[in-house]
């Protein structure tokens, strides 16, 4: 994959948003208290956001330009920069504020919108359709509304055709094909691409790329704006109340009992 394609006249500017999340594979739940245990849990770039970064990088590889990786989080999000930059973006912008720790989707979208206004001109914004921790499936869409640009959500194929962005959306009843003029925002599904694994050279190059840190104030927001609209009262391990009946006996006895249960549930 040549990287990035040179020689295209106008340089497209793509902003790829990502979130630094707790790796859900590291999370455990205490069986008795159902409390969420996060010790030893590591952070990672949210899965679908890797597809968003990859999508931005592939777009600029086709038509020339550069990708800016953008994230908002607590100081912990600083650890995400090297990984994000090793996936192809030319620079990174981090909005850092401890209050982002309990931000909800409404706050995150406002902060990102503020950061993008500060970044200035752009052509395309790419977001994941949902984060792997909350999966509230709305930050990218909210962002487009706040920036008053066209929104194309749940995209699994995108291409630039003489200055018009053409996208395919994978919906429940089929594939909807749409076109928009730029600037525009898309939220992408995980099957839009396979995020390439950062190579050694990309990892080494990442540490040399520019990183800009913004405060919430730089984004034109006050601490009051960071007050979440949705208040989280509790987080507990999800438990399935099931009968947990163990069918005993030899094969024919077990089959006898389970056949009756099935017949009770389903007429067959």
């Amino acid at each position, binding site marked *: 994959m040549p990287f990035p394609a040179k020689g295209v006249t106008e340089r497209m500017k793509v902003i790829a948003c990502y979130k630094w999340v707790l790796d859900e594979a590291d999370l455990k739940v205490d069986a008795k208290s159902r409390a969420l245990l996060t010790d030893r849990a590591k952070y990672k770039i949210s899965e679908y956001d890797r597809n968003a970064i990859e999508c931005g990088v592939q777009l600029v590889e086709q038509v020339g330009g550069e990708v800016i990786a953008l994230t908002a989080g607590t100081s912990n999000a600083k650890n995400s920069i090297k990984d994000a930059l090793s996936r192809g973006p030319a620079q990174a912008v981090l909005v850092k504020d401890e209050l982002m720790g309990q931000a909800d989707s409404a706050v995150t979208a406002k902060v990102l919108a503020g950061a993008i206004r500060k970044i200035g001109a752009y052509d395309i914004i790419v977001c994941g359709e949902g984060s792997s921790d909350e999966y509230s499936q*709305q930050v990218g869409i909210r962002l487009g509304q706040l920036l008053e640009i066209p929104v194309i959500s749940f995209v699994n194929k995108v291409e630039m055709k003489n200055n018009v962005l053409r996208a395919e959306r994978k919906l429940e009843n089929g*594939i909807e094909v749409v076109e928009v003029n730029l600037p525009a925002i898309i939220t992408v599904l995980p099957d839009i691409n396979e995020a390439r694994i950062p190579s050694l050279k990309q990892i080494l190059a990442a540490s040399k790329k520019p990183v800009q840190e913004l405060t919430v104030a730089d984004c034109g927001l006050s601490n009051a704006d960071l007050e979440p609209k949705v208040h989280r009262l509790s987080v507990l391990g999800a438990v399935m109340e099931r009968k947990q009946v163990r069918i005993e006996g030899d094969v024919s006895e077990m089959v006898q009992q389970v056949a009756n249960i099935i017949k009770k549930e389903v007429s067959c």
Partner: protein
Amino acid sequence: MSKIWVISETQSTLLELLAHAKGIAQGESIVAWSFSAEDAQAASQQGADLVYHFEGLKRPEDCTEELIKRAKAELPVAILCGNSKRAKEIAARLAAALDVGLISEGFNLKRNGDNFLSDRYIYGGLCVTTQEVTAKPFMAVMAAKMAEPLAKGTSCPVETVSTPESNVKFVELRPNQAKCDICGANVVVCVGRGISKEEDLELARRLAAKLGGEVGCTRPVAEDLHWMPEEAYIGISGQTVKPVLYIGLGVSGQIQHLSGIRDSKTIIAIDKNENAPIIESADYALVGDLYQIVPALLNELGA
């Protein structure tokens, strides 16, 4: 007279939303926004006090700016949306414009006074969180199949609304071929790694056919072994099913799979490993060799 809105472009969820709205209404009138004449008709008889029907829209999402305008004017108490991708986009744009929270895939909706409470799953189904919203309007995308449509009554007025095209140009819609038949299935027979050869899927097919159900599978069976299509695998990144009866054949029951069958009414698990996680998550568990149990079960059921 304050209102509760419901919005969905699929009739089944629209009717469920009306039931949810009825559940939390305290004197508010219920307004339904629909996108086809049939949906408008159904909604008008099953819980709505007033139905708007968008006309001539190429894409349901094109209604959003109109909805924003009206919502800012009327400031409904609550806005409940369906959980299709189109409805999720409308809901998120509306919430952003009104600068309010939006609970996604919510269930166990409760109201006390003007505060609303709802549960939802996070961390890929590992946890459930209870969230509260105090600002108005309360907005939520409701999880599907969590309420029964209300009984038919006298129909209420239906008004048509037209709205200009949006800045997103519709090109075409290609209806999809691989329909997700296990999503709506009443009975799901699911195969896991406990099945050793591809031909043994026949056992699951015969059982499913006998019970009028469909055959699903776990991620490895579709992604690694490729014995079944991608649309057939059940789990967080696959399909979610809500059958009356789920029967797991050789399914160990990893958390990612369990979160896709969580809402099944009855779960039966047949697995040789008594320590498999699914055994604890099943209503009825048979520990043994499925290659003996299933054939015996088939002829017990006369299949």
